[in-house]
C-alpha cells in the first residue's frame, strides 16, 4: 500500500513525462479494444444475417466451366427425397435505368419458388409466376434498394425500367433483407429464369437453392443431392453443395483471422509501449541514484528498492491500461455512431488487454528495478 502511494506520488511529480510514458500503453490497449470490437462486430453481423437466411436451405453451385447444367437437370434435384422445393437461378450484373436515373445491380433469373425457398417477403405487387418463365416475359421484381434508387418513394409497380437497354415491366418490390459480407441483398433485380438466361446469353443454370423438408435431416439430404449431382455432372470437382452453416463457418473463420491480425497488430503496439516504459524507468533510476543511496543507507534492502521501482512501472502501465480501456470503449462507440457499423465489445479481451498492460509493466520494469536495487549505497550516495 505504502509503496503504491509512493509510486503515485512520484508519478504525480512528473505528470507530463508520466503521460508520455503511458501514451504507448494507452494507444496499445485502446487499439486492441477498438479493433477487436469492430472485428467481432462484423462477425456477429454476418452470423446474424446468414442465420436469418434460414438453416433449412442448401445451395447447390455449379463451379466447373466445361460442364453443362440446365433447368431440366436442376429439376432432378426436386426428385431427391427430403427436398421440399428448389429454385434454380442464374445471376449476373446489369444496368437498370429509369429515365435519367440508373444503377448497377445484380440480377437473378429464377422461378416462382424462389420467394418461398429464400423466405423473402414482398413489399408490394406480385412475384414471378410460372407463366412468366414459360413466356420469357420481360417483367422484373426489384430489391428494396434498387426500387428506392430508381423511383425514390414512389411505388414502382406498373412502371417500366430499362435493363441493359430493354424495357421491363416492374411487377413487384421485395422487402429489405439487409447486407451480408459487404454485398447488399437489396440491390437486386429479379427476372424470370428464362429471361435471365437470355440476358446472360446462356442456357445454363448457375446455382440452385434447395429447401429441405426436415431441418434435422439437412446433412442427409445434402449427401443425397451430392450423389444426384454426380450422376448429372459426372465430375465431383465441378459442383458444391453447401448449407448456411457451412457459409457461416467460412465467414466466421475469415472474421476470426481478421480479428486475430488486428489484435496482433495492437499487441505489438503494447510491447512498443512497454519499451517506452522501460526507457523512462531507466532514466528515472539514474536520476534518482542519490535517492536510492539514501534509502539504502537508511535501511532499505534490495527487495524494497526492487519493489519500489517495479510497482512504479506497474502503476504507470496499469494506469495507462485503464485510460486505454476507457478511450478504447469511447472511440469504438464513436466509430459505431458515425459509421453505423456493428461493434461487439468482448469483456475477456478488455480484461486481457488490461492484464497484458500490467504484465508489460512488470516485464519491462524488472530490468530497471533490478538495476536500481543493485546499486552500491556508497557509490549512490556520492552521486550528484
Amino acid at each position, binding site marked *: 500500500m505504502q509503496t503504491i502511494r509512493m509510486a503515485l506520488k512520484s508519478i504525480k511529480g512528473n505528470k507530463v513525462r508520466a503521460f508520455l510514458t503511458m501514451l504507448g500503453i494507452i494507444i496499445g490497449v485502446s487499439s486492441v479494444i477498438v479493433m477487436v470490437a469492430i472485428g467481432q462486430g462484423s462477425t456477429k453481423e454476418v452470423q446474424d444475417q446468414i442465420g436469418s437466411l434460414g438453416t433449412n436451405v442448401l445451395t447447390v453451385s455449379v463451379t466447373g466451366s466445361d460442364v453443362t447444367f440446365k433447368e431440366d437437370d436442376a429439376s432432378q434435384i426436386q426428385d431427391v427425397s427430403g427436398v421440399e422445393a428448389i429454385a434454380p437461378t442464374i445471376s449476373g450484373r446489369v444496368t437498370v435505368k429509369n429515365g435519367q436515373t440508373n444503377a448497377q445491380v445484380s440480377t437473378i433469373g429464377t422461378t416462382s419458388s424462389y420467394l418461398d425457398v429464400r423466405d423473402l417477403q414482398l413489399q408490394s405487387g406480385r412475384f414471378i409466376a410460372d407463366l412468366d418463365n414459360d413466356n420469357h416475359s420481360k417483367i422484373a421484381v426489384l430489391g428494396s434498394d434498387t426500387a428506392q434508387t430508381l423511383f425514390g418513394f414512389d411505388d414502382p409497380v406498373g412502371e417500366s425500367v430499362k435493363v441493359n437497354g430493354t424495357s421491363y415491366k416492374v411487377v413487384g418490390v421485395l422487402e429489405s433483407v439487409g447486407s451480408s459480407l459487404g454485398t447488399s441483398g437489396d440491390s437486386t433485380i429479379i427476372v424470370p429464369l428464362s429471361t435471365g438466361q437470355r440476358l446472360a446469353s446462356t442456357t445454363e443454370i448457375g446455382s440452385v437453392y434447395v429447401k429441405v423438408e426436415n431441418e434435422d435431416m439437412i446433412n442427409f439430404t445434402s449427401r443425397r443431392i451430392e450423389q444426384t449431382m454426380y450422376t448429372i455432372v459426372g465430375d465431383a470437382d465441378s459442383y458444391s453443395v453447401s448449407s448456411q452453416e457451412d457459409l457461416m463457418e467460412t465467414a466466421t473463420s475469415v472474421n476470426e483471422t481478421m480479428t486475430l491480425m488486428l489484435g496482433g497488430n495492437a499487441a505489438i503496439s503494447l510491447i512498443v509501449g512497454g519499451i517506452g516504459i522501460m526507457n523512462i524507468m531507466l532514466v528515472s533510476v539514474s536520476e534518482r541514484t542519490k535517492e536510492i543511496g539514501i534509502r539504502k543507507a537508511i535501511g532499505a*534492502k534490495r527487495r524494497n528498492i526492487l519493489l519500489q521501482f517495479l510497482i512504479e512501472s506497474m502503476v504507470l502501465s496499469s494506469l495507462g491500461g485503464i485510460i486505454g480501456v476507457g478511450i478504447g470503449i469511447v472511440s469504438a462507440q464513436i466509430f459505431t455512431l458515425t459509421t453505423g457499423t456493428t461493434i461487439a465489445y468482448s469483456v475477456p479481451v478488455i480484461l486481457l488487454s488490461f492484464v497484458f498492460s500490467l504484465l508489460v509493466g512488470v516485464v519491462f520494469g524488472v530490468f530497471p528495478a533490478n538495476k536500481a536495487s543493485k546499486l552500491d549505497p556508497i557509490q549512490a550516495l556520492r552521486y550528484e
Partner: protein
Amino acid sequence: MMTMTEPIIQIKNMKKMYELGGETVMALQDISLDIQKGDFISIIGPSGSGKSTFMNMIGCLDRPDSGEYMLDHEEVGKMKSSQLATIRNEKIGFIFQNFNLIPKLTAVENVELPLIYRGMKAAERREIALEALKKVGLVDRANHLPTQLSGGQQQRVAISRALAGQPPILLADEPTGALDRKTSKEILETMSLLNEQGHTIILITHDLDVAKRANRVVRIHDGQLFENGGEWFADNQDGTEKH
C-alpha cells in the same frame, strides 16, 4: 551511570584494501577501536586518510576484508548485504554533510523513512516522526519540502530522521560541512544535547574546532588510527597533514 562503560562498538584489527587503477591501496591497515555506550567521539583526518572508508565500515555500508567488528553485541563484519541493511536501519542513525533528504518528500515523510523499512504502520510512524521533529523544534515545518527549508533546518530534519528509529548510535559525517558558522554552532549544540540525553555519537570531520566538541578525539592518518587526535592537531595548528 552503569551503562557508560559498556562497549557498543568493538573493532579489532580491521583491514580494507582497494584496487585502484591496478594498484592496491591499503585504505585501512589494522585498526582497532572501542567505543563505549554514551560516548561522544570524533574521528578526525584529512581527505585521503581513510576516514571515509572507516566511516563506511562503522556505518555498515561496506565490509572489512579482515578483522572483527562487534556492533551492539553482534558480529557485523561478515554479514550479508540484506542483514547489513537491517543493522543500518535499527542500529545506526546517519547524519550527512549535505543532509541527504529526499527532495520529493516532505520533512515528516523524510523522517518516517527508516520506520517504513521496519514495516511500521502508517499512523504509528507518523506519530513517532512528529515526535522526533518536535525534539529538534521543527514540528511546525512537518509538511514543508526540503527546498522550502533553510540549510540548518534541513540538517535538523536529517537529525530527527536519524533519531526516529531510536538507534543506539548516531553517525555524523561532516554534519556542519555545508552550513555557515552560526548554524554549525546550533547543530553542534544540538548534538551535544543529544549526547547528554544518552545518545552515542560518532562525529567524522576534518575540522578540529568541530572535533573538539567531542569527549574523545581520535585521528586517522594513512589508514592508521591514533588516540589523542586533539592534542596532535593542536601541535599542528593549521590542521593539515605535513609530510
